[in-house]
């Protein structure tokens, strides 16, 4: 797991907090911000990785990660423990990202703001902000929907049926996107 020394840590007296997710969630559901901070520290990088790979733009990924956690806070009481918190949060984050996709597509007639690979090859913040590996850059350079399908299927483990429903596409279309994505990635990595 990559770590950054640049990000400052919040002032949290972690010694007084439980270290397991179920108890942290219970504390956070009772409006304990310190517990929520620990949950953010623990799961924020996973959410950021999802957002970054899905939208291929680190500024947008940062905004979406904030969006996820700001929207998560008032929804915590809806978590009943039927799955692990990590699983529930991941699905929540995917929904937020896809809502953003749909909103942007409706407004701009496309999924996200740019298809220009050079945008992703040169992250707008710092070189270590995310897209460092050849494969990561090749994924970022994929067409929007092909990238979203590849990330959800091959990286996150969603099925075609799930992706098709989440993205409002036919399963055959998601398979075509995945085929295209894998082919383009193979070519890019040769």
């Amino acid at each position, binding site marked *: 797991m990559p770590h950054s020394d640049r990000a400052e840590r919040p002032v949290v007296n972690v010694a007084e907090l439980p270290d397991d997710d179920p108890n942290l969630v219970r504390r956070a559901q009772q409006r304990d*911000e310190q517990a929520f901070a620990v949950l*953010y520290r623990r799961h924020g*990088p996973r959410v950021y990785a999802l957002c970054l790979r899905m939208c291929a733009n680190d500024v947008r990924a940062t905004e979406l990660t904030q969006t996820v956690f700001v929207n998560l806070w008032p929804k915590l009481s809806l978590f009943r423990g039927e799955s692990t918190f990590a699983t529930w949060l991941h699905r*929540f984050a995917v929904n937020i990202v896809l809502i953003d996709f749909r909103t942007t597509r409706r407004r701009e007639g496309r999924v996200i703001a740019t298809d220009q690979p050079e945008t992703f090859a040169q992250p707008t*913040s710092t070189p270590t902000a*995310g897209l460092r590996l050849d494969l990561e850059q090749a994924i970022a350079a994929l067409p929007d929907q092909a990238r979203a399908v590849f990330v959800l299927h091959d990286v996150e483990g969603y099925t075609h049926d799930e992706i098709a429903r989440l993205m409002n596409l036919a399963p055959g279309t998601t398979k075509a996107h995945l085929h295209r994505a894998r082919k383009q990635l*193979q070519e890019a990595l040769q």
Partner: protein
Amino acid sequence: MTCHDYHDRFDAYLDRTLDADSRRALDAHLAGCAACRQALAGLLTLREQTSRLPRDIVPPRDLWPEIQATLAHTPSADTRSAPVGPRSSRGEVRHRPRWLPSLSLGVAAALVMAFFLYSPEDESAPSWALTPLTGTIRLDANTTDQPSRLKIGQWLETDALSRVELAVGEIGRLEISPNSRLRLLEAGATDHRIELSRGTLDAFIWAPPRLFFVETPSATAIDLGCAYTLAVDEEGRGELHVTAGYVALENGGRSAIVPAGLRCRMQPGAGPGTPYADDAPADLRQALDRFDFGPDGGSPAALSAALLHIREGDTVTLWHLLSRAPATARGAVFDRLAMFAPPPASVTRDGILAADRAMLDRWAEALGLVAP
């Protein structure tokens, strides 16, 4: 068939979705074609590289201060009267989060949309949008083939030819098949609820679990984040088929958890039966029907008949049988399930035989099931 044709099957081959005959044909081709082997190796390499991508990436800067600045004045799902905007250090309510001006329009829109998924606005609009797809539908005593709204308490009915799409607030959608009848019971932010008295619906819900409920004469289907088909016949008997995620079925003291790829039957008075896999053989289905709904249902004899047809992959079925089996026969179910999927270290045979709920839940979790 050309190499190009085989290449088109590589994705399904790797994803294990290719049917057995096609897989055998491809295996045979690969055995004699070095070019295709090389092409397939390329895909395998990509898959291996993808599997090594880090799950976590630390954001380029610390996002917590900006998130935290918004939390204190964000209403929780059950404290909706609280002010929405964050306060300044002097206590005035701000109209938007400090960091909102820095967001793109797209993200701001997403934030607004996501917030209103559960906002008080939903609760004040007790109706769902409906769109007839084919034919004419009935809303109470009126007929229409135009987009409309389904209100609380209103009955929607399709005839032999009509289908309709129904928006579940902002959290999902339903497609209602011909010869169906349903009623909207609740359209609140945290309780989207319909009654399906007969017919078939296809549901796709993208909200967190336990926000969407379908009441039927046999059981209540509770969305746990999923896509499913639910059918109810004229006698109130039902069948659930889950295609993504999970659905819980509950009726009084009986419950079932049905993951993707499984089905579950239900009957009035008896509640949900034992879930079984899509490809369960007819003998197993009939034996489970006998155990769940037959004249000697729940008996050791009916259970033994069902266990005769259990296969290695039927772990979800076995897990449900653990808590439904008569105490004297529970050991046989434990032994069969333990053979296919050993229990976690903290789960003991004695505990399961005593129907220890916590142990049952831990084993369920180990099987990839969420607790019902």
